[in-house]
Structures are given as C-alpha cells and as structure tokens.
C-alpha cells in the first residue's frame, strides 16, 4: 500500500464513519420523526382517551356518592378523621379506634401516609353508622415519643349523636412547653 492509498483509505473510512455517526446521533431524531408522522393519529387518540378518562372520573364520582349514601346515610353517618399538626414530639405508628367498646379500626401507617399527614392531609380513618344518642369513642395512639421512646396514649370522647352526620377529628399536636405530644378530639358540626 503506497502513501497515497494509505491516505485515501482512512478518508474513505472516515466518510463512512461520519455517515454512521449521524445515524447514531439521529437515533432519537428518527424516533421523533416517526412519532411526528403519527402525530395526527396520536392527537386524536389522545383526545379520545382524555374524553374517556373524564367520563370515568364522572362515573367514579357518581359511584362513590351512591356508595356513601347507601352504606352510610346522613342520618346515621359518623366519620372519624385524623390530623397531625407539626408532630415533632411523636412519630405515629398506629391508631386503634373503639366505638362503644367495640374496635372499629386498627390502622398501621406507612411512611408515605405519615408524610402526607405532616404536609397537611387529613385521613378519613373511619366511616360508619351510629344511632342517635350517647356514645363513647376511644382512640389509642402508638408510636415513638420524645427521645425515641415507645409511646402509647389514649384519648376518650363522650358524644351525643343527633339525627345527622357526625364528624369527629383526632388531632395530634405538639405541646411545646412540655416538649410532649398532645392528643385531642374535636367534634365538628
């Protein structure tokens, strides 16, 4: 192979290589182009899917309402919510809920749920039915208290259930002065 040929071959190789490089680099561009040619179809399909999803949201809303009205009519409905305000002194693990001595909920929290509570979410812990009259609610919270100690505390509420839905909120707050958590129950009208 003479000098001229040696120079020619690499040049040829380089030309081929660069053409190949364009193909490599353009891999995504090819994909994008392929998507672009389908874009009209895709847009129509997307619009159809969006419309279908909206109908499904509406249907779910109506189903959800029907379920609530059939299973928990307003005249007997009782809902117990749980909220966490700051919660520096207490890491929530679980809650046990008793209504008139009968356990109605025993809930173990995931990290994700606890974070959602910390960010301001309020959990609907229990939804059930109660007849009008005097009732007793007992909630027992377990978790880690100050200094990583196991912590178990209860709170009780005697309440009068009238004809109409009853909302009760269990609130875990910080009692800064005592550096302790505080567990309170609040009735909502």
């Amino acid at each position: 192979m003479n000098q001229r040929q040696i120079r020619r071959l690499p040049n040829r190789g380089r030309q081929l290589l660069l053409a190949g490089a364009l193909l490599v680099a353009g891999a995504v561009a090819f994909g994008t182009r392929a998507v672009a040619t389908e874009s009209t179809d895709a847009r129509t399909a997307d619009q159809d899917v969006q419309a279908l999803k909206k109908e499904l949201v509406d249907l779910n809303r109506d189903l959800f309402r029907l379920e609530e009205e059939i299973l928990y009519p307003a005249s007997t409905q009782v809902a117990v919510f749980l909220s966490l305000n700051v919660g520096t002194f207490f890491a929530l693990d679980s809650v046990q809920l008793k209504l008139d001595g009968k356990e109605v909920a025993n809930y173990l929290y995931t990290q994700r749920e606890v974070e959602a509570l910390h960010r301001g979410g309020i959990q609907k812990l229990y939804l059930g039915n109660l007849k009008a009259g005097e009732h007793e609610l007992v909630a027992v919270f377990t978790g880690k208290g100050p200094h990583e100690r196991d912590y178990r505390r209860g709170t009780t509420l005697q309440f009068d259930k009238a004809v109409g839905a009853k909302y009760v909120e269990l609130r875990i707050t910080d009692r800064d002065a005592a550096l302790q958590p505080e567990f309170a129950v609040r009735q909502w009208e």
Partner: protein
Amino acid sequence: MTPSLVHRCRSLLVGAMLACAGGMAVADDGTQPAADVPPPTRIRDLDYGDVLFHFFQDDYFAALVRLEVAQEAGRVPDHVAEAELLSGGLYLSLGMQAEAKRRFEALLAARQVPPSVSDRAYFYLARIAFQRGDAADAWQSLGRIRGALPGKLEPERRLLAANVLMSLGRFQEAAASLDGWQDGSVWADYARFNLGVALVRSGEAARGVQLLTAVGTMDARNEERMALRDRANLALGFALLQDRQAEPAAAALRRVRLDGPFTNRALLGLGWAETDASRPQQALVPWLELRERPVVDAAVQEAYLAVPYAYTRLAANGQAAEQYRNAVSAYVAESRRIDESIAAIRSGGFLDSVLDAMPEGVGGPEVASWFWQLSRAPDAAHTRYLYPLLATHSFQEGLKDYRDLRIMQANLETWSGSLEAFAAMVEAREAAGQALGPRKAALLDAADLGGYEQRRAELDARVAQIVATRDVAALATPEEAVRWSALHALEARIEALPAGDQRTALAERAQLLRGTLLWQLDAEYKLRLSRVRTGLGQVDEELAEARSRLTMVEQAGGDAPRETESFAARVEELDRRIARLEPRIEAAAAAQERLLADIAVRELEAQKARLASYATQAQFALAALYDGAATGAAR
C-alpha cells in the same frame, strides 16, 4: 471526502446530538404539575383535608374523585378557590389537559379569586400552552402572574419563562432572565443548560459554550445534578467538536461519568476528539472500551466501525480488516435480534411488557423519571432496542394513557361487583320496608301520645289548684291519706253521737289529731310540692322523647320506599354506564397499543436500516482494504 463535506457532516452530527441531549433536558415536562401545590395554612373543611391526604401520596385519581364528590356535596365551602385550583392540577396530572384548562379558565373567570390562587392558575395555563407548543399563549399567561409563586413553583416559573422565550427565539431576553438567578436551585441550571443548547443551535456558539461550560463544571452532589452535568458536558463536547476544538471537546467529554446514561455517547465522542487531535491510538482507548459494551446501544454499534477506522489511521490494516469482519457479523446478528423484537411486538402484549419491565412501585407520574434514569431499556425482546423511543415524551404520554386505561378498567370491574352488592342491599331494604310497614302502623296506632298529654295537663291543673288552695292534704303520703280518711270517718261518727260530755271529749281528741296531722302535712308541703313539680318535669322530658322517637319512626318509614326506588334507579343507571364504558376502554387501550406498537416497529425498522448501512460501510471498507492489500502485493 472534502473538508467542507466533513464539516457539513459534523454540523449535522452535532445538531442531532444536541437535539438528543437538549430534547431530554427539559426537566419540567408537565407530568407532575400539581405535585407542588402548597397546602393551605389551615384546613377548615375535613373533606378537603381528606383529598389532600390522597393527593400528597400522589394518588391523584382517588384525590380527584373525592374532591369532585366533596365539591358537589358542598363540603368544601371554606376552600372553594383552592379546591378548584387543585381540581385543575389533578386533571393535568392525570393527562386530561383539556379539562384542566377548562377548570383553570373557569376559576379565573370567577370573581374574587385571591391573587395567590389566580397566579398559580395562570402558571398552569402557561404550562399547558407550552406543552401544546403554543409559546405565545404561554407567554401571555406568564405575563398575567402578579407576584412570586410559593415554594418550588417560583423557580419552575422562571425556568418555564426562559424556555418559552427560547421557543419564541428571544434568546437575549432568555439570557437576561437568567442573569442574577442564583438561588441554588437545580431549575436555574436546567435553564442555563437549555439556553446553552439553544444558543449553540442558533449559531451563537460562544455564548452557548460559556453557559454549557458553567453547567458542565458545576458542583453536583445528587443524581439529578450529576445527570444534568453529564448532559451539559456531552452537548458541550459535541458543540466543540463541531467547532473543531478537539482538546476542549475531549476535556468536556472526559467529565462525563463512566457509569451514567450518557457514557456511551461520550466515549464515542471522545474517540472522535482524539482522532481530530491526530491521536488515533488514544481514540482506540474509549472505542475499544465501548465495543465491550452490549451491542444493543447505537454508540456501541458505531464503535464497531470506529475501531477499525482507528486501526487504518494507524496503518494496522490487518487488524482493521479483522475488526471490520467482526463488525459485519455483529450487525447481522443484531439485525436478527431486531427481527425477533419486531415479531414480539407484532404478536401483542407490547405495552404490558413495557409496564411489566418497570421496577416495583413505579407506575405513577414518576414513570417519566424512571425512563430518564434508565441507562438502557430492559433486556426483553419487546423493549431491548427501544430505549431512545421509550424515553421520548410523546411515547411516555401514550404509555401513561394506556396504563391509566388499564387501571380504570380494573377499577370498573371492582365497582361492577360493588354495584351488584348495592342492588342486593336495595332489594333487601325494600323487602324489609314492606315487612315493617304493618308493624310500624300498629306501633303508631298503639302509641296514644295524646292520652298521655291529656293526663299530663290534668295533673298540671290539679297541682295548680292545690297551690291555689294550699291543699296540703292533697300531697299526703298514702299512709297519711289513710289516716286522714280514717280521721274524717271518725269525725263523722263522733258527729253522729248524742250530744254530751263523751262526744265533746271525743271531738276534742279528734280535733287534736286533725291538728297534728295537718301540722305534719303543712311542714312537708313545700318539699312535696317541689317533688311533684320535679316529677312533672320528668314526665315532660319523657313525653318529648317519646314524641321525637315517634316522629323518627314516622319519618323513617315515610321516605323509605321513595329512597329505595331512587337508589334502585341509580344502581341501574350506573350499571348501564359501566357496561357502555367497558368496551370503549378496551377499544381505546387496543388502539393505543396499536399506535405505539406501530411507532416502535418503525423505530426498529429504522435501526435495522442503520445496521444494514453500517454493514455495507464495513464491507466497503473491507473491500477497500483488500483492494489496497492486493494492489500493494501486485507491486
């Protein structure tokens, strides 16, 4: 190849590379628009708190359904505007841009929307418009934001504004908007990266290189920043290669991590930089490393051609010829595997296999980020060649739509079962209502509340008379009453006796007894009257309780048949809606699958064409080598 042609090829190459790197650098693709909606400082409606509880766990569908129920039932009266804003954000998160836009616009059209809410609504409208490709509309919405947005939304707004300006070709303004943006957020770096790429593309290489260098040399302590730094160095390396600045290009490409999603392309580029710097032996280092990697990657495929090219530059023609032969074999084998992939996609189940390949726990709005973090597609027949395609926004949107449809299909199946149970319950209630009817009527008939009330009124009148006449004897105990009656009888008998001393003496004794008894009764009168009044009060309470219970019994029974009828009608209507939607979901999912499978097959066919082209090039090069060797031998 003439220098100008080489240069043109390089320009195209760098342009494509920048398109690749820059296209994926838009961190803000609108897949999680609602995730940063800050909660109100105080929740005033428990139902709104319940919606947020699901929302903060990224369970957007559950949050939206609960929000719709709460809004319809008027249970969020203290969070009306925020709830509407959240609703728009949730629709956006679930890929329903049209409905989201409608919600935001309706919210903004309403009166008395606090600026904190309207600003966020305009931000999301801008995002929707930008996603739709309408930068002018996006810019208009951004212009209506009056104050700083809360939390992470503000840097996102600045990034969006910079991106919109770039889309409008207003690079100077985009650059000006980045000046002084030093809040330490990754958003500012994304904006600098995007602007750097846009400037290089538009021909303002110097300013673009400056921005990309800043991002490519930034301090990165988390995966997101490290990935962005890699992308910046990759784009910078190719921009400099285009400008024939081999040394700084090599320096930028060497900064790309060796174990990231951009490593292969960086190694390929580094080889070119070395050859440009007339160091073909050095170019072999990254290219040989690259050739050891799975051949499914496009950069690796190209390395099969690049390695023998370097050998020819080193005049090692024997090794070059061997490598070209290896390349041809590898391309043919790869092409066969692509055929298998096409067949697998054609046989169905393509999207399910893509979803199955996802790591556990992934499937929410973070799907996009999962693909982004993947260095290559899962090694399954359906997906192994599709990483670049899977990573595109439009493909992921299509995939999410498909996944949503399948989730909703499962959701409807569950509801279908529940509806059957509801229907049975309604039926049972109807039967119980019918059976209870006669018992209820008998109970209501027997409950003579009027009689009791009459007696209560009589008692009241009697007490009033006792008080008026201070009739202490009327409050006597039964024993006292017996004694009182006996005394009365005794007095009558004494009266009947013949007059005389005996009668007088007896009468005096009777009078004494009467006086004593009256004195006792009088002493107890107030206490006894108070007891009687307390007793009457209790009677009143019990009568009221009985009245309330009877009213409840009457009402409970009164509405029951109507309610049961209405429930039965609703169950039937919802059942019909489910039945209508089920085949539509199935058809939409199948259409989605077909659409994306077609796109995937076209992508694979393009890859096959590329491999065929590589194989042809390798064969030509091989032929040229043989030709050269033969010519040399002949001489």
